[in-house]
């Protein structure tokens, strides 16, 4: 049967089957997705997302020396540990009043650029693309594979594959050409990372106040020569991904509805501009807008704000379905920000984490993840922002803000233009990412290779500037500081998969409160106190099913594609149980499946 035929007919009596996947594979951490699927009408009618891991960073960091925070918080995540260290250092630098030397900012930016290139590559090619590889498409949509075999790849001149099916074969796990090459590229780019930050995943040379990396000419030449070895792979990756995703829209009409949700994107900004950033809270709007990825909140396609102070003040951590006790009756740590603005009791600065292990109950509490939301000052809504897997929100926010204008990356009207230099085989190439029509599964995935290109292009600029400084004798990379008796700080950064903030309160030179908010709690959050579902739940709930298998051999690939498009990574916050479905109920007038436009 073809799914499009069944979709065109009018609604049939629902046949609801319970389907769950726990643990989900090819992600980092413990995530479970529990759904109810209407097989008669081929759509997901309900979705719950659950994380089954609690470790307690914000508990055991209390009373520790604040300078240790970056070393400790790195261990929150085994893939983007450096993003945590960097973000922690940003927060500490605000609290200590220290501005690292410019060269240290370049070295940090180069480390982070290498991290984005590494992590997005290994995630897209070795984890996400397995869902689009020949073996998987054959098992889920054999008709689509037949069509892919007959469809010429439009960008074959760039990537070298004749048909779409040839690309899909190249993505077969452990055996496909691209799968294997991506593992190699992930090693070269990690070497680039180690040159700047010492070790991967938990960096060794990052300190509040700067870095310990020794800036020598060969430090940067070693990085540049490796970057140039992967530059053609990046151009090919963009072309291959565009070919496959365009093909999916064409081969499966209506696929744009998969994983689609209201445009509610958040980006906290990345790559500090060393000439502008001073880490002072009062100047955060100015230096935030000078970042080389512009922070911003995008609602229904419009930019609500790109001011980090507004972004900070709007943060709210909600409970509702999480295994914690509420802190609303505790004493607040911070009643006003340094500019005198009131700080809400549900803000991370004021959060107290009290874990209460309990039974999982999908009608009650069912996750170790809390529900971060952003309070829209005009509408009063508590928005369940998502990160678009990271790149989608970053590109969207940067494009709408129109502030990034560099030799290699420019925000242009309605998009981002990225220029990569000549490589071994391919000429200088200018890529243009355009703001898409939808915030959906395919567009989240498409944005990822474009952001790899973005990070590579920015790395070229940072290398030029850093090498210039070094060769003129400016080699200072660290600035000393004193830990104050009392202080607060916040760091805003982009982990690979999206928004990352660290909020720090110091009393008596010790950590009095510390709350890191990585992207996955935003994306994987359960229903909040108002019953608003988190982004995975919202994106999966209501989505159509295109897979041709029935309940007995159902693989759930469309659901998996949606969840993985967000780049789930749950050590920072979190499994799919997948068994033969149990038929729950058959109802004649479906009440589930409200639209998520």
């Amino acid at each position, binding site marked *: 049967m073809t799914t499009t035929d069944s979709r065109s007919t009018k609604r049939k009596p629902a046949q609801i089957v319970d389907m*769950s*996947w*726990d643990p*989900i*594979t*090819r992600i*980092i*951490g*413990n995530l*479970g997705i529990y759904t109810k699927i209407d097989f008669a009408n081929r759509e997901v009618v309900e979705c719950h997302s659950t994380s*089954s*891991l*609690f*470790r*307690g960073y914000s*508990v*055991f960091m209390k009373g*520790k*020396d604040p300078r*240790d925070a970056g*070393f*400790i918080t790195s*261990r929150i*995540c*085994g893939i983007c*540990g450096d993003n945590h260290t960097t973000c922690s250092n940003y927060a500490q630098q605000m609290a200590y009043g220290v501005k690292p030397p410019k060269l240290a900012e370049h070295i940090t930016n180069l480390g982070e650029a290498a991290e984005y290139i590494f992590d997005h590559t290994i995630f897209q090619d070795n984890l996400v693309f397995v869902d689009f590889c020949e*073996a998987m498409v054959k098992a889920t949509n054999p008709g689509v594979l037949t069509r892919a075999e007959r469809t010429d790849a439009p960008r074959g001149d760039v990537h070298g594959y004749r048909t779409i099916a040839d690309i899909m074969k190249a993505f077969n*796990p*452990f055996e496909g050409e691209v799968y*294997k090459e991506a593992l190699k590229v*992930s*090693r070269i780019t990690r*070497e680039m990372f*180690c040159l700047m*930050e*010492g*070790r*991967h*995943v*938990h*960096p*060794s*040379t990052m300190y509040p*106040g*700067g*870095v*310990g*990396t020794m800036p020598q000419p060969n430090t940067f030449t070693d990085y540049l020569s490796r970057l140039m070895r992967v530059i053609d792979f990046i151009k090919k990756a963009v072309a291959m991904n565009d070919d496959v995703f365009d093909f999916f829209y064409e081969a499966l009409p209506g696929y744009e509805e998969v994983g689609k949700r209201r445009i509610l994107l958040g980006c906290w900004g990345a790559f500090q501009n060393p000439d502008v950033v001073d880490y002072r809270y009062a100047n955060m709007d100015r230096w935030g807008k000078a970042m080389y990825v512009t922070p911003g909140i995008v609602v229904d396609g419009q930019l609500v704000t790109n001011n980090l102070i507004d972004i900070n003040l709007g943060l709210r951590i909600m409970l509702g379905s999480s*295994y914690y006790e509420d802190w609303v009756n505790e004493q607040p740590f911070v009643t006003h920000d340094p500019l005198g603005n009131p700080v809400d009791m549900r803000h991370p600065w004021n959060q107290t984490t009290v874990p209460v*292990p309990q*039974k*999982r109950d999908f009608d009650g509490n069912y996750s170790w993840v809390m529900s971060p939301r952003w309070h829209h000052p005009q509408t009063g809504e508590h928005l369940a922002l998502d990160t678009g897997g990271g790149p989608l929100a970053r590109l969207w926010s940067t494009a709408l803000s129109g502030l990034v204008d560099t030799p290699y990356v420019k925000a242009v009207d309605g998009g981002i233009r990225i220029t990569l230099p000549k490589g071994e085989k391919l000429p200088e190439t200018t890529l243009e990412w355009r703001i898409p029509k939808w915030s959906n599964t395919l567009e989240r995935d498409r944005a990822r290779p474009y952001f790899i290109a973005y990070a590579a292009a920015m790395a070229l600029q940072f290398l030029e500037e850093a090498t210039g400084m070094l060769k003129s004798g400016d080699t200072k*990379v*660290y600035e000393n500081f004193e830990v104050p008796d009392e202080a607060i700080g916040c760091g805003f950064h982009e982990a690979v998969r999206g928004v990352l903030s660290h909020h720090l309160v110091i009393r008596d030179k010790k950590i009095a409160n510390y709350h890191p908010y990585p992207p996955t709690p935003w994306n994987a959050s359960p229903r909040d106190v108002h019953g608003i579902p988190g982004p995975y739940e919202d994106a999966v709930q209501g989505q159509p099913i295109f897979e041709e298998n029935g309940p007995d051999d159902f*693989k759930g690939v469309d659901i998996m594609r949606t969840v993985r498009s967000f780049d789930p990574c749950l*050590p920072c916050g979190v*499994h*799919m*149980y*997948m068994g033969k479905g149990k038929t729950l109920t058959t109802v004649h007038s479906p009440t589930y499946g409200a639209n998520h436009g």
Partner: protein
Amino acid sequence: MTTQSGTTEAKASNGFDEITILWISEGMSCDGDTVSLTAAGQPSIEDVVLGLIPGLPKVNLVNKVLSPSLGGEDFLAPYRAAARGELEPFILVIEGSIPNQNIIQGDGYWTSFGNDPETGEPQTLNSWIDQLAPRAWAVVAAGTCATFGGIHAMAGNPTGCMGLADYLGWEFKARSGLPVVNVPGCPIQPENFMETLVWVLQHAAGAAPPPPLDHMLRPQWLFGKTVHEGCDRAAYYEQADFAKDYNSPKCQVKVGCWGPVVNCNVPKRGWMAGVGGCPNVGGICIGCTMPSFPDAFMPFMDEPPGGTLSTMLVKPYGAVVRRLRGLTNDMVNHEPKWRHNKRKLTSGYDPHWRA
């Protein structure tokens, strides 16, 4: 207790042709050890899985991050089979600290791995270990969390977590007779882990004796020396030339480095393919391979308590040695006087025909 080569009762003397690696990262981990594993090039994990390393059994790797399966029961099937005794032999790899479920009152859990098929409730990591460890041919702890408890087991932690040998008992022996094989590191240095795994696999193939382990069950040849002994900044220590802040390429003991007393080979080996590391590239050693990590080493950015005395004692000796070496270095930085373009050969060459 040290497991000497050849002393372990080797039940696999005939060797296996095929073995499964059941890797569980649902300990309290950050999955950083799995990610680190993919950075190894000597050998790479795909080389091992694809049979490109001679002398190893065929390896079936089951790891959530790398699994091509769709997840859930499809992914859990080999674990369930092993728990029922229907999948042999297998190596159990645990990543992450082991929580203490006994401190929870009621039905809650700290971490789970899939659901209990009977009850539908989250199946705790602990129940998996209880079922799989007694049946495993070998048990490997990947990373400092699984070996000794690590960061999540630091003072003030709410979960009461610990390392795998703390949980199973330090006297635990797997079916091969091997104790828990501990590969510490936060995260594992990629090649250190692959090196250990390859030796365990060669042992499984009947091609090698069991790997020699020290009293903390670490591979001796990897963790027998200290950071300092492999550090290219160690000579600065000997010369009593210490960095005052992180701008300096000199020895970092006074700004927080614990290298002289930490068992780890990273400065010598680099982080991956010889690139990166810790004190050799400007990162203080925070003792992340050690049983007492992290508490014994905090605050990280302060001089280790013992450092004050030892750096003071080395001062007079170091100052003299540095001065003498400076003189000799200056001397060897000049060319001999006979290299010139004058009209006379002064090199000392004395041809017989001149006489």
